[in-house]
């Protein structure tokens, strides 16, 4: 009984954050801000569903399931990489050296540095 309530609570939390992430995708005005919305859905949204699944298998089915932990691990490994790719595409298409804050050194952000510039700065090929 208590377990069922607990599982339901986690499923509802998961649903709410999934929905908020999707609302954010529609509502926010520019690509970089929209990129913030899916990072919510993958953390608490998926996290809630995984915890609910763990509890269900442990208390209702009666065995411990490791797959949820693996899904969490793989999400934490892959989500930042896709986010980074999308941000990088945005920088290539919509930003210039002057529209971003400075790097604090005389070399630019890595996205903007050409091979020739890198060789000049480091003095050797890769």
């Amino acid at each position, binding site marked *: 009984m208590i377990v069922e309530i607990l599982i339901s609570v986690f499923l509802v939390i998961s649903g*709410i*954050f999934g929905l*908020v992430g999707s*609302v*954010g995708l529609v*509502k*926010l*005005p*520019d690509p*970089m*801000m929209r*990129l*913030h*919305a899916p*990072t*919510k859905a993958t*953390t*608490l949204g998926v*996290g809630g569903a995984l915890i609910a699944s763990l509890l269900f298998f442990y208390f209702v089915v009666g065995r411990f*399931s*490791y*797959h949820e*932990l*693996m899904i969490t691990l793989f999400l*934490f*490994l892959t*989500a*930042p990489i896709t*986010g*980074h790719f999308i*941000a*990088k595409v*945005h*920088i290539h298409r919509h930003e210039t050296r002057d529209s*971003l*804050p*400075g*790097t*604090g*050194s005389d*070399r*630019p*952000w*890595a*996205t903007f*540095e050409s091979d020739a*510039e*890198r060789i000049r*700065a480091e003095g050797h090929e890769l």
Partner: protein
Amino acid sequence: MIRKLLPHPLLTLLLIVAWQMLVNKLTLGNLVLGAILGLVIPILTAPYWPNRPRLRSLPRIVEYILVVLWDIVIANIQVAGIILFKRNASTRPAWINVPLRLHTPEAITVLAGTITMTPGTISSDLSADGHTLLVHCLHAPDPDAIRDQIKSRYERRLMEIFE
């Protein structure tokens, strides 16, 4: 001899455990298959780990993971509030640059991943010399405060783990 057979003992252990968790059932056959994978993969991938960093202390790693998980929960709620209740005109998105004291590539990767996973901030680029991280914030009325939080909460702990 043992170094040649086990170039990366921790990776071997991780692969064996990960394999058992993927199969979700502990049998002798799975254990043997996991052990074969755990032996072969580190040997094949050894050239890709030229100078891997030594990890300092396990308690600090556990502490870091707990801090990040807690921050993810808190920040999720804050960002949900921004998305649902704040008008677009009054959110203040901003790019901020975070000067790094870390210089191990692995440590910078972990920091960048942490920044992306904690909602409201996304790490977007690294300066060509690897000394500054470019971070996009969904709502940053005070960019300096966010920079200070990243440095004191995450970077300081990673310094203790990696360097």
